[in-house]
């Protein structure tokens, strides 16, 4: 298994040399959404707290580093951490309110959605950051400002982000933090009786998750160069974030990556197939059907199912 991963990594590293720009772009999105999905995985997959509002963290991270770069000339390499911290601050608030007031399941989902929507509406109405027209970054191609001429630079950054997030999740899973999160997902009350401070650990998961997602926001901003509140805070983005770990395997290290490799190509293919009318929504039908299929037949996601096929018990 180890050398399979190493081989895959080696392939991914040399791939840009042989791919055309379009294919490179596809991979960038695969890596980027895998990164976001992995960040979500910490609180949604491992701790089992379904958040449908993670787009809020992307948005805050994106707008923060964008505004700091354009208005204050702060390099996004630093701005991404500021964005991450601000996202983590919101994550702390949402987590605190949700967990302190004991919101579970559906109610917690609704809380996260409510906060994301509030962010979206507020940003839409704040002309200082462009309001409904959006916020734009002029392209300079200057690496100091996190901008690159070559698509391939973004490829490697996205890959690095994905690997970093995966490394963090793997590290968490190996430690007590991860074991506690998994147990919290199974049965919170039983955890409390065993000395686990469930509130603290859920908060930690939320903070780490929202911080990483916020950092991802910077990548989003400086790859797309335009920020639209409806796109960057909207529920469709939250869906994109959530669906990859769910389909690939929530609460597993490789789940979000597998999910992204399944879903991004699927999205591209349906975009091509149905792309005539000009609407890019058709791929979401496939998402919907896939989601239904996963819930009904593979509730733990694709990765655990694959592992069962190979006849091995998860080694924890």
């Amino acid at each position, binding site marked *: 298994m180890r050398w399979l991963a190493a081989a895959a990594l080696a392939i991914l590293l040399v791939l840009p040399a042989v791919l055309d720009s379009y294919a490179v772009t596809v991979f960038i999105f695969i890596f980027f959404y895998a990164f976001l999905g992995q960040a979500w995985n910490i609180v949604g997959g491992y701790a089992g707290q379904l958040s449908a509002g993670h787009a809020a963290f992307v948005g805050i991270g994106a707008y923060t580093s964008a505004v700091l770069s354009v208005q204050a000339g702060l390099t996004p390499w630093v701005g991404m951490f500021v964005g991450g911290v601000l996202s983590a601050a919101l994550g702390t608030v949402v987590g605190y309110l949700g967990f302190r007031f004991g919101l579970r399941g559906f109610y917690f989902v609704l809380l996260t959605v409510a906060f994301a929507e509030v962010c979206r509406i507020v940003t839409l109405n704040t002309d200082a950051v462009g309001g409904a027209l959006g916020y734009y970054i002029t392209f300079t191609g200057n690496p100091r400002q996190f901008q690159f001429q070559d698509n391939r630079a973004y490829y490697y950054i996205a890959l690095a982000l994905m690997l970093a997030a995966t490394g963090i999740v793997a590290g968490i899973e*190996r*430690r*007590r933090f991860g*074991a*506690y999160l*998994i*147990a919290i997902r*199974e*049965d919170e*009350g*039983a*955890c*409390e*009786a*065993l*000395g*686990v*401070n*469930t509130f603290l650990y859920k908060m930690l998961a939320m903070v780490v998750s929202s911080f990483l997602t916020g950092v991802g926001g910077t990548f989003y901003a400086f790859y797309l160069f335009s920020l639209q509140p409806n796109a960057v805070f909207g529920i469709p983005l939250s869906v994109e974030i959530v669906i990859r770990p769910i389909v690939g395997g929530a609460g597993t290290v490789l789940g979000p990556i597998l999910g992204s490799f399944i879903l991004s190509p699927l999205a591209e293919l349906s975009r091509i197939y149905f792309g005539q009318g000009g609407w890019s929504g058709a791929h979401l039908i496939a998402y919907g059907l896939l989601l239904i299929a996963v819930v009904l037949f593979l509730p733990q996601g694709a990765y655990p199912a694959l592992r069962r096929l190979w006849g091995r*018990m998860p080694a*924890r």
Partner: protein
Amino acid sequence: MSACPGRLLEVSGISKRFGGVQAVRDLSFDMGRGEVLGLIGPNGAGKTTAFNLLSGFLIPDAGEIHFDGRPIVGVKPHAICRFGLARTFQIVRPFPHLSVLENVRIGALARHPRMADARGKARAVIDQVGLGPRADHAAAGLTLAERKRLELARALATEPTLLLLDEVMAGLNPTEIEVLVVLIRGLNAAGVSILLIEHNMRAVMTLSHRIVVLNFGEKIVEGEPAAVANHPRVVEAYLGEEYVHAPAP
């Protein structure tokens, strides 16, 4: 009311009401170190509520609880566990998707933050309760008797000074019960104090140093097993008034 030094657990006048029901009324008792205290009473007498109050899952409307000299009313369950008071649940709550070993390891992590150490401790506890062969089985696939032992093992892994066992023998056949009785006696001999809710009278009588009897949320009798067993108020509580004066069979 100040805490008496040396008493492991002191419960003073705790009460709990749910809507129209007074589940526990002005309950007071205490336990010494190394004791096994049996808590019995008919269904609905307030025993599990008392456990919930002691372990921090419920907060009493009135009264005090001192564990090992420190007041614990209002303290969160996980903190109470860390102080050394562990509990099991009447309806067992294993982590269904985790293996037996992983289940117990969660308990062990409370005292051994490093995963490797916790694993070792978990193994030891699993062997102690006799679940060794099933260590890598998913908890969901265990028999009831095994799940009861898992519940016990998990709580044990937190290295408690006082262990609250809630009907840990319910639903088991006589052989399984006997195994648990021996196990519990062994635990007590090793220094763990035990507060036991149980309906199985024989087990309670053999294990307990003292017994507290509850009915309708109140303590009605307290004393040594032999004295309690034939106490008229206990008979009345379980069987009804007519049996109090019935001739012995």
